[in-house]
């Protein structure tokens, strides 16, 4: 009975492999498979939302599906790098926002915006000054008067240091002829909460931030004209200050994508922006639909890059935050390691056998802590920003860890604990298998490497009933295909080798 079941499961597995891999070998004209839109932030964020809306509307005009894929990390660098690492075959589109300009500069990343083809700018989301109604601000003049009265101690806030909102604040101060203090509240929601508590005079954000909330009012938006959905909110220009600053969101390809793909995607996007549903979406999220093709969009990016550079410099944020280590970090680590364990051995007079496990672990922890401590001495903080030092908290943890670990070494001096072990070798073999699985999955794909991995671990663990092993290993792959691929719509990788 079990043999039949095993045979059946293996057959099903082979069927699945055939289905998955024969499908990708059927290549014809562009596009032959769904186009991924890589988004740098979490589901539900403004750009994710826009990408999903485009996907939804595009379905009306073409059978080809767009799939939104969230690759978060390092303010967008992870997503940008992913697109640059992918083939320029037109199947990987990047959702881009204006914040990428400062991200690349501040992080001194090797990602170069010139490697992207800025395909289409979709929306323009005007920057806005928002304050709590309790303040009684009705116009920019009110803010200016208050700023003068407070003698430059007026507080402005928003998420991020060196973020678009921060740069907008600096631009405002320049235009309005005032000075104020910027407090970074890290995240959008925390900023809005602080604004609701009236902790700051002005919050720099976007009009959509006030949606559905009581007690907040938009003083001014930085666009050329008023928003149709917010007809009562005046612009800077109307109030006599020439300031036009918006967050844009659009799409880019890696350079070198075939013309066929560029035309195809631009064509669809042009249809999307004329769709009624799109216009509704824009009005509802308080943004302007502002389609720009590759030429215009690229020109905008070039101009705004220069401007961003100027403001980041002015804020003193384009400095080298970490000084070059005089010796390679790995060497420093080895030196500390040698030092710590030399001391340990000295303290027990070179009787290596007396060093117990606790002391080994504590020695390791002290080594790592000292290595972190060394790195804090390389931090180079510009004097222009008024903050507590970034090394303060890490140093507190480091000192506590070193103290407690030394205490542990001292206390466990006399005892030599014996740890009951029977087979650490097998553990290392399994760790090696895991690493092998990790390395090969990218190339050969999930569906082929997984059963191999599971079967080998079972074998190492001395399991020998082969029919049950087969049911487990191949059954697991089938199960994960159904759960991940079919139920949760997560694509498991098929391997670069076959693509």
């Amino acid at each position, binding site marked *: 009975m079990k043999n039949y079941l095993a045979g059946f499961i293996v057959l099903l597995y082979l069927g699945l492999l055939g289905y998955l891999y024969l499908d990708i070998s059927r290549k014809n004209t562009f596009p032959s498979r769904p186009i991924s839109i890589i988004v740098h932030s979490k589901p539900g964020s403004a750009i994710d939302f826009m990408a999903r809306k485009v996907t939804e509307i595009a379905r009306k005009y073409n059978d080809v599906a767009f799939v*939104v894929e969230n690759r978060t990390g390092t303010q967008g660098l992870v997503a940008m790098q992913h697109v640059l690492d992918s083939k320029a075959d037109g199947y990987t589109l990047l959702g881009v926002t204006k914040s990428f300009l400062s991200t690349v500069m501040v992080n001194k990343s090797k990602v170069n915006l010139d490697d992207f083809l800025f395909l289409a700018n979709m929306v323009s989301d005007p920057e806005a000054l928002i304050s709590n109604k309790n303040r009684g601000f009705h116009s920019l003049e009110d803010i200016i008067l208050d700023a003068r009265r407070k003698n430059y101690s007026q507080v402005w806030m928003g998420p991020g240091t060196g973020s678009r909102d921060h740069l907008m604040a600096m631009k405002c101060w320049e235009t309005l002829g005032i000075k104020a203090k910027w407090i970074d509240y890290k995240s959008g929601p925390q900023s809005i909460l602080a604004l609701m*508590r009236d902790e700051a005079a002005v919050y720099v954000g976007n009009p959509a931030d006030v949606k559905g909330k009581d007690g907040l009012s938009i003083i001014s938006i930085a666009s050329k004209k008023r928003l149709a959905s917010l007809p009562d909110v005046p612009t800077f220009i109307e109030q006599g200050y020439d300031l036009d600053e918006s967050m844009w969101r659009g799409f880019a390809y890696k350079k070198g994508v075939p013309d066929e793909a560029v035309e195809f995607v631009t064509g669809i996007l042009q249809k999307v922006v004329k769709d009624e549903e799109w216009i509704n979406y824009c009005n509802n999220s308080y943004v302007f639909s502002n389609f720009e093709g590759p030429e215009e969009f690229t020109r905008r990016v070039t101009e705004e890059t220069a401007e961003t550079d100027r403001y980041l410099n002015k804020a003193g944020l384009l400095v080298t935050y970490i000084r070059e280590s005089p010796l390679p970090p790995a060497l420093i680590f080895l030196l500390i390691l040698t030092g710590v364990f030399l001391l340990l051995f000295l303290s027990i007079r070179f009787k290596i056998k007396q060093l117990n496990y606790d002391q080994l672990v504590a020695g390791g922890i002290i080594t790592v802590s000292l290595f972190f401590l060394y790195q804090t001495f390389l931090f180079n903080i510009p004097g222009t920003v008024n903050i507590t030092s*970034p090394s303060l*908290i890490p140093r507190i*943890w480091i000192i506590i860890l070193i103290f407690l670990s030394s205490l542990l070494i001292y206390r466990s001096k006399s005892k030599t604990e014996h740890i009951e072990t029977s087979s650490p070798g097998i553990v290392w073999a399994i760790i090696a298998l*895991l690493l092998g699985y990790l390395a090969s999955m990218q190339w050969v794909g999930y569906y082929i490497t997984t059963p191999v991995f599971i079967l080998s671990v079972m074998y190492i*663990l001395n399991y020998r009933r082969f029919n049950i092993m087969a049911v487990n290993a191949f059954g697991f792959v089938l199960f994960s295909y159904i759960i991940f691929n079919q139920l949760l719509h997560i694509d498991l990788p098929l391997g670069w080798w076959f693509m």
Partner: protein
Amino acid sequence: MGIFQDLWAGMQEFGQFLPILMMLVGVVIGIIVGVLPGLSPSIGVALMLPVTFGLDAISALVLLVSVYLASNYGGSITAIAINTPGTPGAVATTFDGYELTKKGKPLHALLTSLTASTVGGLVGTIILILFSVPLAKLALSFESYEYFALGVFGLTIISSLAGKSPLKGFISSGIGLLLVTIGFDTELPFSRFSLGIPDLADGIEFIPALIGLFALGEIFYSIEKGDYREKRKSAEVNLSDTLPVKQLVKLKTVILKSSVIGTLVGCIPGAGGTIATFIAYDQAKNSSKHPEEFGKGSLEGVAAPEAANNGSVGGALVPLLTLGIPGSASTAVLIGALMIHKLNPGPELFNKEAGLVYGIFISLFFANIFMFLIGLLGNKLWIKIIAAPKSLLYPIILALSFIGSYFIQNSVFDVGVCIAFGIMGWLLKRGDFPTAPVVLGLILGKMIEENLRLSLVKGEWIEFFTRPGSLIIILLAVISFFMPYLKKKWLSFNKKK
């Protein structure tokens, strides 16, 4: 009368074919998401988001909220069965849940967790319906000073988590606190301690680290001890060994108290259910008649975190629906879902769409009950899985952990993080260093640093003690820190008498 009218309107919204169907589907998917390590509630909700595009508003929200609720329960199943918290909120459940499994009483643990989750969810929902407006004030009153104090309060829980050696417990938490400083500085745009490695620039991803510490660490440790060679005796897992209702009734105080803790902490934006589970565990231990059983398989130790975890779901909806502020990663996705259906979260929603809001509340109520029924059925299946030979079970858990860490952001580096933390968990475990404090350090480190530094930019350090909110929490922290020692002294003093 207002509330009854609203509830009636909600009943009419929810009481239709599609919303009810979506609730059923959501609960089942939620449990699956919770069980799979790596798929946290927020990822589960995000994965379901595209499905809701085609639905009407109430069905869409019911689906997402049900997934959110049930995944918080599902995480406890793997925590109990295989010491792998399926979700971050289930970390505290492993302390006693897995111990019970090792003692051959997994069904006791599973039933307790299911009951506590259900009651916690119901209590959270009732509090949400009755007190969302005053709770919104609580959420709003939390400034950086209070967040900092809450973080410190969270750290004091280590004194009751540490087990045999408090010193080792504190060292473990220090490791977590130090490792979480890797990544972007909380004020300046530069990455600390990442040694120029791009994947490390944002710091260590939490969920792969969690899976590594618990799932991989435990497997490596067990394999080293050679326990995969043991033949499982069928008597060890007794299928007919059900938990008498009497024992569950005894847990009522712990469950109710923890549910309220969960709801309250859950409604503070950014604090979240995971911190709530630790606080509830600590409180349960401090007020228990048998604190010595905690960590060795106490049913109270399973009930407390689970009730808090599901209570936090109702809590997390408070700032979302009343202020329009997402308090957690999952509710951030719910905001997206609301906006897709042209609804603005916030006070406006209560006024304009009372039927919808109360429809969601009612669906939460029924989702809890349905979750209980599905959970009862599921327990039989989980017990069978636990009874499987370990040499078959371990490779599957390893593969699941592997996919779990990979799919959080399709990153090979994260799988590496998972393996590295697995090795660390193993090395710590074989020296009797508890691993839970590492997780606590990872969770709280950022909150402590961010809010301390923000507070110092805004004002003076003295405000930590002059603001009533932060002062109360700091005092609670001091009490909670010394409680285990005082209690020991008190008990021995009484014995002498």
